[in-house]
Structures are given as C-alpha cells and as structure tokens.
C-alpha cells in the first residue's frame, strides 16, 4: 500500500462522507459545510494527480467564493431546518434503488472497461502553470473570451435581480 494509494483512499473517504453528510443533514448550513469539505478533498485529489494550479483555483474560486455566496444566502434568508413533507409513492420506494442503479451502472462501466484507459507514464507529474496558460491563450483563446463575456452577463443579471423595485 504505497503512500499515494493511502492518500487517495483517505481523501476519497473524506469526499464520500462529505457527500453523504450533504444528503443526510437537515439544516442547510451543515450541508454547505459538508460541501466545503468535499471541495477541499477534491482539491487534495487534484494535487495528488499533479494538477496544482487547478487545485489552487478550486479552493480559491469554489471554496472561497461560490460557497461563501451560498452561506451568505442561507444566512440572509434565515433558512431553517427543512420541514418533512410526504414524497410521492414512486419517489419513496423507487427513488433510492434507481439512484443506486445509476451509480452502479456508471461505476461498473468504469471498472469493466478500465483496461482501455491508459495509465499515466509519470503519475503525479506536476502540470506547470506555464504550459497550462500557453494552452489557454493559444488553442483555447476563443472559449476564454466567451467565458469573460459570460461572467459579464452573469454580473448584469445579478445586478438586475438585486435591484429594488421602483415605485
């Protein structure tokens, strides 16, 4: 059991426990905190795979901005413990087995055709930020400019939604 495998299982368990906690917690704040744990675990997995820049961006953007936004909204709306409502009969009895079937199908597909996926030559080799940025600004410059436009649209949308009503 090498150190890399041990770290992988530790982080994978942390991510799965966080995701389960997201489903099972009743208060939205606890779900949000579990999601933050999942995101930090996934950032750790990125580091294990050598994607250091993506790991840093994951923590800064996802963990430090998007989840802060979620927590602000939960605090502002004073979201309380979820009320128990009755599911439809289909969801109650067929929901969980169907979800497990979906997960099982995906996982089985990965395992069965696993030999077709190439294993990396240099596992955990660090992807340098320089190569990443060169790629981003040469091959992917068009999507890059489009995403900046998308962010502008999102900012305008959020501004419009947050405006007070004019009488």
């Amino acid at each position, binding site marked *: 059991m090498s150190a*890399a495998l041990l770290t*992988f299982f530790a982080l994978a368990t942390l*991510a*799965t426990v966080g*995701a*389960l906690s*997201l*489903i099972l917690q009743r208060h*939205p704040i606890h*779900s*949000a905190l579990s*999601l933050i744990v*999942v995101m930090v675990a*996934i950032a750790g*997995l*990125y580091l294990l*795979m050598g*994607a250091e820049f*993506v790991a840093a*961006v*994951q923590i800064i*953007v*996802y963990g430090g901005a*998007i989840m802060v936004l*979620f927590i602000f*909204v*939960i605090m*502002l709306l004073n*979201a309380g413990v*979820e*009320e128990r*409502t009755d599911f439809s009969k289909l969801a109650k009895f067929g*929901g*969980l087995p169907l*979800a497990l079937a*979906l*997960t099982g199908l*995906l*996982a089985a597909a*990965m*395992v069965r055709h*696993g030999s077709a*996926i190439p*294993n*990396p030559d240099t596992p*955990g080799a660090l*992807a340098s930020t320089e190569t*990443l940025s060169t*790629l*981003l600004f040469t091959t*992917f410059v068009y*999507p890059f400019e489009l*995403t900046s436009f*998308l*962010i502008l649209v*999102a*900012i305008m*949308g*959020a501004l419009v939604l*947050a405006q007070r009503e004019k009488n």
Partner: protein
Amino acid sequence: MVPTQYYLVLSAILFGLGAVAFVFRRNIITIFMSIELMLNAVNLAFVAFSQARGKLDGQIFVLFVIVVAAAEAAVGLGIIILTARNRQSLNVERVDLLKL
C-alpha cells in the same frame, strides 16, 4: 501509483450521491448545492483523464466548468432570493401555483 479507474469510480459515486440529493431534498438551496456536487464529480473525471493521457486539455476544461459554475451560482442564488421573498418559503413544493 493510483490507477485512473479509481478516480473514475469515485467520480461516479459522487455523481450518484449528488443525483440522490437533487431528487430527495426539498430545500431549494440544498438542491442547488447538489448540482455543484455533481459538477465537482465531473471535474474530477476530467482531471483524471487529463492525467491519464498526458495532455492538459482536461484541466483547461475544468477551469471553464468552474467559471460557468460560478456564473450560474451567482444568477441562480439571485433568483432564489427573489422567489423566497415572494413565496416566503424555501421549500420547492410550495412553488406550485401552476399545478393542476
């Protein structure tokens, strides 16, 4: 060395858990968070494949997915705030004016 399959199976499990949370929870914010969980699972698969093939295209795509998720979270939470003020509740089953 961790085989790529392990990452992919973990990604499938997280995606499945996100889908379960999406279907079963009633609070709109928790549903939104499960969407973020599913996006994260997909990101993990992207980076795993990027490492397996030795090219960096997967990681670039992950950056784009993170940006899109941020934009979506901003606008989506704005809509949630407005709807919650309107209906005075965060329960998705209360938004049923168009139901027969």
